[in-house]
């Protein structure tokens, strides 16, 4: 049963690529927003907080449709990006990465924000008395101490991106080899007669990938946590 077909491999590799790109692209934004929410008070903070969390509570189809309106060929930003920068999201794997990155973003920001909030801010003051300007203090103290939270945030985002279905299929459809991820492929297989065996194979693959991600993050976060606690 475990001879995966070429089409199945395509869907698996595509899923991994989309989830990895989504996570890596979201990471700098996740750290910046997590830091802002943890450390700064500014006008509109609760609005930013709400917008970041929105994909978590909105029906994914709604998020996907909003992305289509915004980043579609005739969308508000999509036309501009396509005409002037040559970046196209609609019906491309990059669009799938955008959709799944946005869906995973709230989970990432939450983990990073919590870990930055738990850092003793007085350590940054100590760094300043030793000559570190705010940017250096952030890079040498805050960022390394937030690492366990950043890792678990990234893994949560990756897992969410890997399993994302509703927003992705609404925004970029279900095109084999371009936007058909494992989830979309399973969905397609369940719609055709005699697709059960292939669907089941992909289900097992999805479970294995998720498990590996979970174990890897657990291990990484634990070793980073030991460093942070000074052991």
């Amino acid at each position: 049963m475990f001879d995966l077909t070429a089409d199945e491999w395509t869907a698996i590799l595509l899923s991994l690529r989309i989830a990895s790109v989504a996570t890596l692209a979201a990471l700098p934004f996740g750290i910046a927003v997590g830091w802002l929410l943890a450390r700064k008070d500014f006008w509109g903070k609760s609005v930013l907080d709400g917008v970041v969390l929105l994909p978590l509570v909105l029906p994914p189809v709604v998020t996907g449709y909003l992305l289509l309106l915004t980043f579609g060929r005739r969308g508000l930003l999509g036309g501009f990006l396509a005409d002037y920068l040559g970046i196209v999201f609609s019906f491309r794997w990059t669009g799938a990465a955008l959709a799944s990155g946005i869906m995973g973003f709230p989970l990432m920001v939450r983990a990073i924000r919590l870990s930055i909030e738990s850092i003793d801010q007085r350590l940054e003051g100590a760094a300043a008395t030793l000559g570190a300007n705010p940017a250096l203090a952030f890079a040498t103290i805050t960022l390394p101490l937030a690492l366990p939270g950043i890792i678990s945030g990234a893994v949560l985002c990756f897992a969410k991106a890997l399993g994302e279905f509703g927003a992705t299929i609404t925004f970029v459809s279900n095109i084999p080899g371009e936007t058909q991820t494992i989830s979309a492929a399973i969905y397609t297989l369940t719609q055709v007669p005699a697709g059960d065996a292939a669907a089941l194979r992909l289900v097992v693959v999805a479970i294995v990938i998720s498990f590996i991600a979970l174990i890897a993050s657990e291990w990484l976060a634990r070793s980073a946590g030991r460093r942070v606690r000074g052991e």
Partner: protein
Amino acid sequence: MTMLTVDVEKKLGAFTVEAAFDTAAGITALFGPSGAGKTSIANMIAGLVTPDRGRIVLDDTVLFESGRIDMPSYQRRIGYVFQEGRLFPHLTVRANLAYGRRMLRLSAEPQAERRILDMLDIGHLMERRPGRLSGGERQRVAFGRALMAQPRLLLLDEPLASLDAARKREILPYLIRLRDEAKMPMIYVSHAPAEVRAVARQVVRIDGGRVVAIGGHELLVDAEGELTSPA
């Protein structure tokens, strides 16, 4: 001869710090009961807290002048040893000690550094992380970290207060060596007359956010009864 002039005012909730004093070379104690505002004054000298108004001058450098000058903490070159050490938990003792030199891009001075390590007896701890140090060791490393950044003035905020009586007796000789060998001007914040008597000659007595007397050990005599803390 190093000279520090402080004349600051700061409202902290219902409490107001309003303190003015000068210090000459050597060690000056800021002495007074807990909650008198001693740490706030030290934080203003270090640049970690901004006064509402006033002036702070170290030799011929104006560190703060209301409305005109507020030199950031990382440019002041004022070392700070905190009550709880505040070592960076994710860095080894070696990296903690080198932190100031790296941030300030000072060239390495192996001889001077060797002297500091010997004076504080911490050379054997270099590869450990702060979580694996005893309270006394941690505080000695905190002294070393502040010294190695080659500060113009060293602030010591209740450096022994978090230690038990035996650890205090262990550290006190190092402090006295620090005073006699490092020849660095210091401000020693403490509520314990015995400590102040051992390390400082000049005493600035603080109470209720104000300077109530400036003088020598005779100021400790009046205060001894009410202020001696059960170690």
